[in-house]
């Protein structure tokens, strides 16, 4: 019945709403509002591992290193660094850096920051990232040494998001308060308030060592529903939304209040093939699947052109990428021949699984393309969550394969995709279940335990040739990060999917 009455009722309420204080929309734009699909459980940068939490933390905390939009390491709290030996690094700290509470940054703070993650009783979910760090030593007033238990080539990568916290402050207020009501860092914005499930409010920190950021206030609103986020950006309720999908893109591209900023990122799409059983225990069948997929059509038709074909799962911006290894061409005739060779002249029936809801159209298109060459595929969608996690990752039951994406946790190194997807060690991610490539484990291990970058590069080139030939995966494409941004704000999407809002400026009028 509401249909006929609701407008009147709603209008009555709306009048009430007008009487309430209007949302801040002063003449000068001093507030930047970002919509996130959720908040992390804590503001403590060491006690979660969620993208949405990292995006908030990086604007409040600094790490030793920073990464430029060109993906180069830049000084942040460390002004310089060098390897003293294979297992020991020296970092010089910036002088006179202040925390939000006025304290000056000391090497003891740096040591404390690492110690609280290495200390297993604290159960930091980031422990695995820096497990290789054995000890952090304070050398003098502006020098620390980081000692690893074996050569750790990913150290600098890991330090780009490893926020430095204030020892004295945390010891005073305790871990709980630090993560909820009293987070203190050295970053461009300081904490104001966190209304759970609503908004995290930050305010510019006057004494930030880079200088004050352009926006005085920074809000991270929690808006779980994508359609609602789109409505918010169209009405100016928020200034930045993330992960704009291909179907909404045209509408926002031409919108009077918003624009689109898009850039290639690490996230790579693949179909992990189950090499334990038929048909994908046969190399020819796996290669056939790779020839069967018309990647450029998927990119053009389903991803609004915002994708790049890849030869393997190693992404072009990652260290170790070898441009000499070329993607499988789309060749249905060749695919059918290989399938016959593999012993399936009349084709074969398989099931593929996926929990990647946003990529459902691509998943179904790939399934159809496989079907066309005789790999008759039933695509099965799962609700992402516990059941899927158990089925796919904890118990490895996703025969004959699964469509998925991998973003390397923003680590620009081949190891960050090769180890989880292909290494068969117990406790690994999915490689232990689905990949069976002779000799691959050894090469991955060798490359991850050397700091000799040219040597690592050679090893990764070898690995990429090997996996392209052995095809443990259907190699698809990398995607773009696509932001919709208010025309009142000047900002650009970054290849590491960060929202480094110090770079955001009010748009020139």
């Amino acid at each position, binding site marked *: *019945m509401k*249909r006929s009455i609701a407008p009147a*009722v709603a209008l009555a309420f709306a009048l009430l709403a007008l009487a309430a204080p209007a949302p801040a929309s002063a003449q000068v734009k001093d507030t930047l509002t970002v919509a996130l699909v959720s908040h992390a459980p*804590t503001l403590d940068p060491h006690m979660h591992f969620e993208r949405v939490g990292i995006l908030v933390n990086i604007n409040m905390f600094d790490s030793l290193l920073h990464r430029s939009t060109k993906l180069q390491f830049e000084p942040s709290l460390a002004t310089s660094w060098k390897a003293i030996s294979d297992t020991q690094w020296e970092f010089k700290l910036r002088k006179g850096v202040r925390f939000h509470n006025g304290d000056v940054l000391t090497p003891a703070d740096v040591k404390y920051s690492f110690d609280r993650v290495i200390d*297993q009783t604290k159960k930091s979910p980031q422990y695995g990232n820096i497990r290789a760090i054995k000890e952090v030593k304070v050398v003098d007033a502006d020098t620390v040494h980081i000692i690893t238990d074996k050569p750790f080539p990913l150290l600098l990568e890991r330090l780009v998001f490893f926020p430095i916290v204030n020892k004295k402050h945390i010891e005073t207020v305790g871990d709980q308060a630090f993560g*909820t009501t009293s987070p203190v860092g050295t970053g461009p914005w300081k904490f104001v308030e966190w209304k759970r499930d609503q908004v995290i409010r930050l305010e510019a920190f006057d004494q930030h060592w880079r200088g004050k950021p352009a926006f005085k206030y920074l809000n991270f609103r929690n808006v779980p529903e994508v359609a609602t986020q789109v409505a918010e950006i169209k009405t100016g309720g928020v200034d930045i939304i993330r992960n704009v999908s291909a179907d909404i893109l045209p509408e926002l591209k031409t919108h009077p209040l918003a624009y689109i900023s898009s850039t290639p990122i690490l996230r790579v799409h693949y179909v992990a093939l189950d090499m334990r059983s038929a048909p994908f225990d046969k190399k020819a069948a796996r290669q056939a699947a790779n020839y069967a997929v018309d990647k450029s059509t998927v990119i053009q038709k389903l991803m609004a052109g915002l994708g790049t074909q890849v030869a393997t799962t190693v992404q072009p911006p990652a260290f170790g990428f070898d441009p000499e290894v070329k993607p499988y061409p789309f060749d249905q005739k060749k695919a059918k021949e290989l399938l016959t060779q593999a012993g399936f002249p009349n084709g074969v029936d398989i099931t593929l699984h996926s929990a990647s809801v946003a990529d459902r159209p691509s998943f179904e298109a790939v399934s159809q393309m496989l079907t066309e060459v005789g790999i008759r595929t039933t695509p099965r969608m799962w609700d*992402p*969550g516990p059941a899927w996690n*158990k089925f796919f*990752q904890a118990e490895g039951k996703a025969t004959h394969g699964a469509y998925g994406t991998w973003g390397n946790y923003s680590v620009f190194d081949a190891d960050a995709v090769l180890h989880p997807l292909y290494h068969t060690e117990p406790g690994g991610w999915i490689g232990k279940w689905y990949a069976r490539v002779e000799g691959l484990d050894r090469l991955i291990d060798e490359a991850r335990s050397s700091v000799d970058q040219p040597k690592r590069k050679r090893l990764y080139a070898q690995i990429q040739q090997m996996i392209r030939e052995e095809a443990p995966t259907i190699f698809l494409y990398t995607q773009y990060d696509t932001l919709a941004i208010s025309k009142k704000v000047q900002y650009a999407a970054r290849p590491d999917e960060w929202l480094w809002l110090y770079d955001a400026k009010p748009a020139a009028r």
Partner: protein
Amino acid sequence: MLSLVTRRLVRLVVVLAGVSLVTFSILQASGDPVALMMPEAPEADRIALRLSMGFDDPLPVQFGRFVGNIVRGDFGQSFFHREPALPLVLARMPTTLLLTLLAMGLSLVIAIPIGILSAVRRNSAFDHGATLVVFLGTSMPVFWTGIMLILLFAVQLRVLPVSGWETWGALVLPAATLATFSTPLLLRIVRSSMLEVINLDYVRTARAKGVSEWFVICRHALTNAALPLVTVAGLQFGLLLGGAIITETVFAVPGVGRLIVGAIRQLDFPIVQAGVFVLALIVVLVNFAVDMLYIYLNPQIRVR
């Protein structure tokens, strides 16, 4: 009378015990939270965590511990938030209750007059129109209605905020969305129970006394038609709490529903258990209140 109240109270406790057993069992069957908490950790670390959380004890032991703790009001620490679960749930409860009550109020305000009018002017154009709208309201999924209302009132007309919970205006669309879900059934109940009583002898007698038609309908007919309405409204309250979960997601409302949905995804047992328990408690209490109201409204029950 007193024994009736006691019987209902006993039933209340039994239902709550059942609810906790069911949530406990379903969650146990749904997966390993440790695997989600430490997706890339070596097996040894996971085993250590599992031991420290007591997940390796036999299930009856875990359930016994669980019930013992509930009695003391302790649902455990949220795995994800690392805070006690019950306060996290209770802190969000007022928001969900406010949303639900607003929707319920809105539903009643709409359903009662229109239901009465439909009954009084049976088979008129108004009645048919109302039936049509009831069909529409019942058929529209809550999340869809919500998005349509956003597009109309927030994006096109710009009279209300899209989402959030900061101003009074922000309450309007979620409450209206949720009300579309409950209004149709209430309206039908009002209409049909009015139709039942409107031609009974006592109503005719009242008319014969010469009082105005509206007085007859409101004073005599409606009080008797109110019984089924109270029952259904009580049941609807539970459904509305369920519907609030979806509405909260669409409108970014910081209520208990969103907390529970998030906790289910993260296998955060303590939050799910505390949340379901508190919601069940509210539903059971509302139904208890309805039963009591019934006794008040219908003296016959007291006698039985």
